[in-house]
Structures are given as structure tokens and as C-alpha cells.
């Protein structure tokens, strides 16, 4: 398969629409969560206003790595989003490898971490430290589950996994335990409570974000929205069978994100070592059990 510039543009279109989608969805969720808290909440397009306002501000910079890290972060996440298969729009079919997702995503995270540490604020460093520590928690169970999935499905391409699910049933049915683990890990990835330890405003004054303002913060917000889009899409594609058409995909997407937001709103925040111990108690055990069920016994396949 040859790759043309059109493919790049279409893929960028996916990333851009993903951003717009997630920004709107999170606006809607802010409104619904506000109802849980007995209030009206902001307009659904408030996040757009926030982002554009930030891009308009006259920001400060702490040196070149502070700026470069932000650009790298956004670049990594845009790149990851360009690989994301959305329903039947699959641009780089076959190359949307799961491990590419995991590690290309890490480029963005590394960029942000670097930029945050480059700001020279210890609170940012501590925040980054917590974010990385948390990563050790949630990535491992998630990757074990997906590894077992790849083993039984014989492909690590996300779009191929979606196709298999469209044909033979969702992985939610095939591996219910794995889906639960995946959801718990998704909460960690999204940084939803109780796993928002690295932001923890009361302790770290918003952690890695502590020095950001203006366009850098705006770009990180864009990055955050796209990252959320990638993560939720990954979950939908891996466990909920993606979507045969856009609408189905969007419905699943909306449900997953809203569910994660709702759950997070009635939970407190863990401390960082509690996060790691939590993931290394139940989710990893469940993940191993699920992997054993799939790989050794072949149940559900």
C-alpha cells in the first residue's frame, strides 16, 4: 500500500475532528455533571472558548525546552490521533499497530513531562513524577489484556481487531473481565478521579500544569482533548467493537466518556502509592486471569 499526501490530510482530518468531538463531548459532560452537583453548568462550547482564549493570551516562557516540549507533546498526540481508526475511516490500514499507539502516545507524554520539568518548578516535577508512576500502574494490566487479545486474534492492528469484532462479536462479550480491567485502566489514562493524583490542585497546585498559561496551556488543552479522544477510541475499538458506521462509534464513545466522568465524580483522590498498589492488587490479577483464560484455555474465543 502506498501512502500519499492525501492520506496524511485525511488522517489529520480525523485528528482534527477528534479534537472537535472530544471538546464538545467534554463540554456536554461538564453540563451533565453539573446536574449531578445540582447546578446548571457552563455552555457546551465552553471548552472551545477556553482554548481560544488561552491561545490569545500573552504567555511567558521559561526557555526553549519549555516551548519545545509543548510542541513535541502536541505533535506526538496529533500523530497518535492520525493513526486512530474511527468506525470505517481507517487511513493507515494495517499500520495502526497497538504498540505504535502505546509508544507514540508516550512521545507526547514525554514532551509534556520535559516541558513541565523545564519550567523549573518543583511542583511540576513532582507532578510529572506522579504521572509517570501512575503510568507504571495502569499501563501494565492494560497491555497484558491486549497482549492476550493479540495472541488469540493473531493481529495487533487495531482496525483488524475491529473487523474481527464486527464479524464475531464484541470483545466485551469475549473477555468481560478484561473489559472491566480495561475500563479501570482507562480511568487511569484519562486521569479521572480517583486517579488524578498528578494534577491534585490542593497538593501540587495542578501539578505539571503549574507554570503554564497562555498559548502553552492552550496547546496542552488541545493535546489533552486529543489524547482523551485517542484513549477513548482505543477502548471503544479494542473492547466495544469499534463501529460499523460513525454514528455507532459516536454513541459508544459518548457512553464510555460519560460513564468515566460520572464514576469519577463520586470518588475521592488516591495518593500516588495507593494508585500503584491498587493497580497491582486487583486489576493486574484480573488481567492475568483473563489472559490465562484466553491464552491457555481459549475460553470465549
Amino acid at each position, binding site marked *: 500500500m502506498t*501512502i500519499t499526501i492525501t492520506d*496524511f490530510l485525511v*488522517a*489529520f482530518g480525523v485528528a482534527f475532528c477528534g479534537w472537535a468531538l472530544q471538546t464538545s463531548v467534554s463540554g456536554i459532560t461538564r453540563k451533565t455533571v453539573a446536574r449531578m452537583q445540582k447546578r446548571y453548568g457552563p455552555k457546551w462550547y465552553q471548552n472551545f472558548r477556553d482554548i481560544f482564549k488561552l491561545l490569545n*493570551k*500573552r*504567555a*511567558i*516562557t*521559561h*526557555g526553549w525546552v519549555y*516551548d519545545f516540549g*509543548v*510542541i513535541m507533546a*502536541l*505533535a506526538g498526540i*496529533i*500523530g497518535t490521533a492520525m493513526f486512530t481508526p474511527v468506525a470505517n475511516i481507517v487511513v*493507515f490500514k*494495517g*499500520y495502526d*499497530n497497538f504498540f505504535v499507539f502505546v*509508544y507514540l502516545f*508516550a*512521545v507526547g507524554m*514525554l514532551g509534556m513531562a*520535559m516541558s513541565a*520539568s*523545564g519550567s*523549573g518548578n*518543583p*511542583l511540576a*516535577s513532582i507532578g*510529572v*513524577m*506522579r504521572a*509517570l*508512576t501512575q*503510568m*507504571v500502574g495502569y*499501563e*501494565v494490566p492494560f*497491555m*497484558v489484556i491486549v*497482549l492476550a487479545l*493479540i*495472541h488469540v486474534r493473531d*493481529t*495487533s*492492528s487495531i482496525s*483488524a481487531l475491529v473487523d474481527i469484532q464486527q464479524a464475531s462479536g464484541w470483545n466485551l462479550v469475549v473477555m468481560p473481565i478484561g473489559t472491566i480491567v480495561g475500563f479501570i485502566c482507562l480511568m487511569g489514562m484519562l486521569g479521572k478521579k480517583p486517579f488524578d493524583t498528578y494534577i491534585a490542585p490542593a497538593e501540587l*497546585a495542578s501539578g505539571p500544569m*503549574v*507554570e503554564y498559561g497562555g*498559548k502553552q496551556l492552550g*496547546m496542552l488543552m488541545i493535546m489533552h482533548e486529543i489524547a482523551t479522544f485517542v484513549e477513548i477510541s482505543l477502548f471503544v475499538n479494542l473492547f466495544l467493537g469499534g463501529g460499523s458506521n460513525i454514528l455507532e462509534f459516536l454513541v459508544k464513545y459518548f457512553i464510555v466518556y460519560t460513564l468515566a466522568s460520572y464514576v469519577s465524580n463520586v470518588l475521592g483522590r488516591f495518593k500516588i502509592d495507593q494508585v*500503584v*498498589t491498587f493497580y497491582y492488587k486487583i486489576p493486574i490479577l484480573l488481567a*492475568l486471569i483473563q489472559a490465562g483464560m484466553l*491464552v491457555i484455555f481459549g475460553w470465549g474465543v
Partner: protein
Amino acid sequence: MTILTIIIALIVLSFATYYITKINNQVGAYTTVVVTLAALVIFLLEGDKLSGASSIGILRFSVTPLAWFFSIIMLIVYSMVAFFNPYWMKKILHPGAYNMLFLLSLAGTIGVFFAENFIVMFIFWEIVVWASMFIIPFGKSRTASVVYYAMSTFGSFTFLYAIFMLYANYGTFVIKDSLEAAKGDANIAIAAFILMLLAGFIKLGIFPFHIWLPMAHGNAPDTFSPILSGGLVKLGAFLTILITTLLPIHEVTKDQAYIFGVPILIYVLMIFGAISIVVGTLMAIKQDDAKKLLAYSSVANGGYILIGILLYDEMALSGALIHIFGHAIASATAFLTIAAVSYRTGTTKMSELGGMIHKMPITYVVYLMAIISMAGIPPMTGFISKWLLFQALADQGMFFIATTMFFGSIGSFLYVFRPLSVLFLGQLKPEHKTVKEAPIGMLIPMVILSGITLFYGVLPNSLVEYTAKIESALGFDKVIETSALVIQGNNGDLHAPLITGIFAFGFIIALIIFLIAPKSRKVGLMDTYTAGEFLYTPSLYHAGYAYYAPFERLYQKHPNIVALFAALVQKVKDFGKFIRFVFFSRWPGRGVMFIILTMILLMWGEKL
């Protein structure tokens, strides 16, 4: 040109360097640069034309793609590190000896790679061990050298025992022949395999033999640590690949029970690799000394390499080979950057440093690229090898091993980020206000090494093709496949240039957004959020010490293998004391008495 010529030339030149250095430090140091570079150029130019034909007596050599691959890695590392030697001549106790041993160890490694029979291999193996053993105490600690030597000697003994065992049974020292012959008798084959593997384990720093590695790497002279980590450790990998594939161990052990598609013995050995990954990762996260941190990361990476080799799968072996290449380069680069920082500031303790990016930006970028590779993030070589290894693991469905590998992989983000954040970023300490960028002679090799890492991360195909060649030479039925720009795995394809292209595309988009938005105002590093309070001491606002404190606390009370070894050492010492008490005391009567008693007992036994 033959291998023998090159090796002899290296040995001769190494002694010559000693005297040159005696006359003039700098000239001696530059000689090492010229010699290593010349060797690299010869190897690259001659390529496959190198021959092992000429020989002196038992000194016979054979040229294989595997040996060529390893020696190229070794020569790249050696020649690049050699650039640093001139700057260290003043700091090292015996510059002449250092330069000599430097070249001698290179000769030794090349000898090991191309040796045709086990005896030659063993001789050169010992040359490497001795040469490096003498170099290590030029740094900070003598104990490190002792531990290294004790460990290596143990490995050498088992290696030698295996060689003689094979010789006793099959009457040949030639590697290929003796291993071929051993195939017939599973017990001997397995015994020889394990005995030789022990030597490999020790060199590679696999648990439980990993303790020498951080001690030696951490305490060796700053210029020699990259050689140890990037070069000499890989000797173990070479030996492991050699015996695993030439035997091949999977065929020998095919009668055993299988777990996850591999024989139980292999699985157990892989567990050692897995433990190394976990131990290396956890210990690396704890370290405050940047060199020790990188040394423990070598332990963890040794685990990956071992698992990749033992999987005995064309993707896994290719992954392991690329990992050896990638890690050798990246680890050497990282060690070199630390050496550069140490050259300018005189310390490698991260908590004593900070904000070096403002003084050493190029060094920072080089380090950044090295750690991206070490963490396995695209677009660097490390990603290619990790991708291949994960594919192979998924293929086998080994999820327990995979768990540790994922843990090590994510854990590597933690430990590689620590020097980045603590040493290079953050607040600049006042005492380092006058520090300058590393001298140009240091920057050149670092930039070249980074270039190599990046190049093979973006266009890995030539590398993968060469691993395919190695695999076919080692007798694999199926070799890793590549087409145009795509690496084809069993479970999916990897298009490395596409990933880079997309990243570059994203970068352009992000850059456009950044440039459109209003320009930002530059502020000082101490003009930062302090909750409104006032602070003027940069070192008080730099999170460096106990960086991962909450995470470290989780495994604070871990069982410590060092304690076990310490207990062993204590036992040996006690035994030595007893011996001394009996034989070397002021009253020889005690010794005489003991001997008489023993003799009586022996004779008694004979009579009975």
C-alpha cells in the same frame, strides 16, 4: 585483510600506545582514537571480504555475519568513546596503562567474536576480563574491581569446565563441531549449555549475577563506563546467542514438558531474564547516581536481550539483535553525556546537579535522543527492537513474561526521565553558573551516536535485513521479512518511516499553532509559582533528591540479593580465618596436628 592481522595489530599497537602515552598523554590518547577509528573503517570497508583464513597454531578465526555485526557495534562504541580519552588523561591515575588496556580489551572482544574454537575464545575472553578489571579501579572504587573479577572468574571457570567437558566427550575444541556433536546427548548438551550460559549471564548481568554491573559501571572511569555498558556486556549476549542457536537448545530440550510453547528449561531461564528486568528497573528507579542508574538499566536491558534470544523465534532473535545494537549505542551515548557533565561539574550525583540544559544544550539533546531510544519510543532504534520483541511475545502468548517486560518498558520511562528532569532540567545551581558546554571533541562522537540511533529508528530496514542474514547463517528455517519500508511481523506490520513522517507532520501542525499565537515573554527560572511567597535559593526549589520517593517506599523492604552475597562473602572470610588460624598462626603445631589427624583419617579409610 585477515582478522588475525587486525588483532595482532591491535595488540601491538596497544603496547605501543603505552609508551607513547608515557612520552605524551595527549598523543597517546589520540592514538587510541586513530587506532579504533581505523579499525572501524577497515571493518566497514572490507565488510564481508574479511577473512579468517590465516592462523598461527591454534589461533584460528572464522568470519560469520554474527561476529561482524557484533564487532561493528563494538568498534562504533570504542571509536566514539575514544574521543573522550584525551580529556580524561589528567584525571586517570595511570594514563599509559589505561590507553593500553583500552586497546587490548578491544582486541580481546574482536578475538572473542571471530574465534573459531573455544580455546581461542576463552583466551580472548580472559584478555577482556583482565584488561577491564585493571581499568575499573582507575575510577572511584577498588571493591568494584574485586567484585567484577570474582564474578568473572566464576564465569570463566564454568566456561572452561564446559569447554573441557565437551572436549573430553567429543575431542574437539572447534565451536561448531563440538556443539554439533553435543546435540546427540541431551544431558551433556544441557550441562554444557548451562555452564556456558552462566558465563554469559555474568557478563550480561542477569539476575542473580547482576550485582557486579552497577558497582563496576558506576565506579569505573567515566570514559570506560560506556565501554562496559555498550560493549563488554554484549559479550555475554554474543555467547548466549552462539550457544543457543548453534546447539540449538530448543531441539536438545524438545523432550521436556512445554510451557507457552517453549521447553520448561528455556522458560525457567527466561524467568531469570524477567527477574532481571524487574530488579534492574526497580533498582534503577532508586538510584541517585546517574551512572549507577544507567548501569541498572543495562541489567534490565540484558533481561530483554536474554528473553529475545531464548524465545528462539526469527522475530525475537531479530528483536534481540537490534536491541543489542540499539541499547549499545544508546547506553553508550547516555553514559557519554553523563561523562561530559561530570567532566564539566565533577559529579554524577543527580541531586547535586540541576538545570544543566541552560549550560549544555547539545549534551541535553543528545541525552534526550538516547533515552528516547532506551525507553523504546519512536522514532528511535529502541522502538523497533521493542516492537519486535513484543510481537514475538504476543505470538507465543507468554503473558507472565510479557507482564514483566511491560513493567520494565514502562518503568524505563521512570528511570530515564529522572536524569533528564533532575540533572538537565529544573533550577540551575549557583555553583554551576560558570559551566560551559562540553568541548567539541566530546560533542562530535555524541552527535554521531545520536545520528545512528535516529537513522536506524527511522529506516530500520537495512538493519533488519542484516539480522535476517545473521539468522539464515545461524540456520534458521524462517527469517524475518521486510519489504520496501515495512517490517512484517507475525501479527502485524511496522512502517517506521510512516510513524516518523506522521510525527513530523504533527510537529509542523503544532509548530504552526505555536507560531500563530502571540509571542511569549521570557522570564527567569526563579520567576515561578511559589504560592505567592518569595524564594531566592535555586537549590531549594529543585526537586531532585528521592525523586520517586512514594514509589520507592513501596519496595523499600525488598529482599536484597546483595545481602545474600555478603553473607556468602562472610562465610568465605570465616573459612579463610579458620585456615589462617590453623595453618598460619604462631604455633605451627596446630597445623601439623591437623595434617596428621587428616592423614590418619585418610589412611584409616583406606584400610577399611
